[in-house]
């Protein structure tokens, strides 16, 4: 499948707003249910950062780390059976019909995203909920995320959300100074 860069503007992407993540694992359990994954297969890695000392207090945050669906995915290049593929809309997925569970993709991926599904012997990895997306639905993790840390939106909306957040932050700090 050829990659058409113009598609990027027309398709949604998973927007990860780590500032809203509370490390609740709802995304992981949603993924377990959607893809019938057994317990222990982590397609989402929720990384707890801290607590670290900051000034007089502590700071702690959570980083939901799932597949980045790279532009030039190392896993796709490494896969010996072409099971790992990238769709025109950017989704990188593993075709279970072709996957032989050799885990070459897991070694190739710089972020450790692909992992072995112990119940099937095949690779488990975020497939962008392609079956749902093809029906026009949001990916399961984004839909269930309790705090809105994950959202499935267009790239323009992501940019706008980022700008909005920054503007609100500045306005709030401005009003705090004024007070």
């Amino acid at each position: 499948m050829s990659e058409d860069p113009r598609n990027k503007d027309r398709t949604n992407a998973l927007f990860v707003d780590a500032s809203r993540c509370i490390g609740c694992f709802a995304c992981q359990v949603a993924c377990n249910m959607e893809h019938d994954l057994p317990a222990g297969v982590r397609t989402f890695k929720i990384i707890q950062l801290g607590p670290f000392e900051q000034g007089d207090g502590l700071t702690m945050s959570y980083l939901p780390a799932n597949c980045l669906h790279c532009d030039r995915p190392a896993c796709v290049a490494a896969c010996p059976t072409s099971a790992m593929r990238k769709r025109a809309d950017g989704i990188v997925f593993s075709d279970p019909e072709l996957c032989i569970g050799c885990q070459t993709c897991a070694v190739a991926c710089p972020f450790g995203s692909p992992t072995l599904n112990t119940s099937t012997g095949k690779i488990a990895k975020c497939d962008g909920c392609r079956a749902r997306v093809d029906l026009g639905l949001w990916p399961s993790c984004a839909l269930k995320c309790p705090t809105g840390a994950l959202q499935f939106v267009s790239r323009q909306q992501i940019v706008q959300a980022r700008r909005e957040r920054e503007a609100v932050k500045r306005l709030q700090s401005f009003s705090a100074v004024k007070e």
Partner: protein
Amino acid sequence: MIARFALKRVTGTAKDYEKPVATVCRECSVGCGLVAYVGKDTIVDVQGAEDHPVSRGRLCARGIAFVQALEHVERLRVPAHRESPHAGFVDLNDWDKALDLLAEHLRRSRERHGPESLLIGCDTEAGSDFSFCAKRFARLWGTPLVLDPFEEPIKPWPAGLRSPSSSCTQWPKSRSILLVESDLASTHPVAFSWLMDAQRSGAKIIAADSRFTRTMSKADVGLVIRPGTGNILGTALMKTFLDLDLHRKDRVESCFTNPETWVDSFAEVQAADLAEAAGVPHERLEELAVMIAGTQTTTVISAKSLAYKPGYRIWLTMATAMDWTGNDVGGWYPLDSGRPPMDVTGDIEEGEEKLLSWLYGDHRELVKEILEADSTADTFNVKAFIGSGNCLNGFLSHLNASIPEMDVAAYFGCFPNATRDAAHIIFPATMWPERDSVTFSNDRALQWAERILDPRTGCRSGLDFWTGLAQRFGWEEYFPWTGQDGRADHVAFYDWLLSRGSFTCEYQVDDLKRSGEEHHLVRWQLQKEASGKSGFQGFPTPDGKIEPVGPAASALPDIQPKEGYPLYFQATTVISRSRDVSNWLPWTAELEPDSLIQMNPHIAQSLGIETGDEVIVRGPKGLIEGRAWLSRMVPERMIWSQQSLDEHWVLIHRKDQPSREALTILEELLA
């Protein structure tokens, strides 16, 4: 003004299903709207109900993983019996036989030891029908020993007081939100999203807890307080408001029964002393008081655990004195206090009202008192026990040692656990997705929660259990909710139940069937006369006033280390678990293993402990084992675990390290 755009969420499922069932999640007390997609008698997918005003289509991990328990191979499906605690269970394959057997045992036990020898433990897992009916059965039986931890926090509310605070959906309108010992992000993630919305709208989030929690990590101000001193912090804050003249004198005058005495009672204490008792620097408390008072509309969210400690009503007192209560925005939001008062025994003429009051106390301590009473005053001689969920591993753990001496112990539950292991008779219970019920949420919402699936063969509800047992004693007229098929009629029961509450009697189940849909919720305590900032006319108590509490109501908790046990032990719930059934949900059970024992890196380093090491936490009477998790989430002198240990003060050491050596190191370090 910055333009905001609504993100269009597109819901639905890609799975094959036969029908969607709209219901309410009953994993916790938030009351999220849920849509389950059912195919061939199993749930194939679940999603949040998009138009639900509280959950807005969102779910937490527990609200998804519950599906796994329904078909779990370990689930109990057959009533069973055994002659003694050491004998094996024999399947009875028949509920009627099991109920006959229990009735016979109970009858014999009553003849020998009297009616007050029966104790009933109500775990929330069994459903509200189990606990309401247990109280009714106990009244007919003549025992006051019904222990139901879910009920209690409502009682500090003064009689007639309906709504001390607004809904969580109003939090974004608050300008500051104070959370006291409540890790809302872990216990109620969906409700926490409203808190994050409030923060984004400019509200200051202040979290006070003894541990650096998820909630505190998102707060604007984090206050690490001494364990168990939440209510003392409230008293210290109130004293600071009074010292700095930040309270509303007119509100104190008009809403308190004894305003002058109350103000005078604070003259005898120093804010600095109270602040020190709570472990907070006095200057910090003053800064906080000024900040909170400056924001005008404040919501105080208090944990359920504070309800069992002295001085709990300081929060209502403070919210009133500061003019936060009774408005559309702000006020006191006591977590897990959403069940309205229901008189479920008043229509029974036989017997007298004897339910035990165990407010302001530790559940375990109360059970200890009950058990000690039987040897001294011969008041309670507990010889029969009916327990639901895994209460013997929770609030009734002290009862464990007495079970072998009992005439009969019955277990009503879904999975094998400590309570099942102690029982003589087992009654397999339905799980919440198999029960029709009215749910009571933190927001005081009344919702009709339809069952998603029919009960699995062999499993029955709490209403079925008590109705069946009552029939064996000729009390059918007090348990008349039986359908044409001979099984319990839950709609008829909840219609009756709603009629037994002064705040709910205007509703019937039919009225609640659309509660939660189209952004509308039926709430049981609409305080119409008190809503609106200018319209507040005092509390709906007979004289429009409430009795405030002063510093005398608080008492310092046991925060002095015990000799040989220098570290404080705390056990709390984690985000992916609630109740015993969580052990049977593999998706969530593996996320945060209950073997993890959190300790401060500084202490760990001195003891030569690293993350992953096998450690033992030892108290005077018990111990737990697990693997160390080094984290600054706990202060130096604290050990934290999910596993409960009936101790406040402990010693920790590596499994291969003598406890004496660890104690010597810690004593030197902490001296």
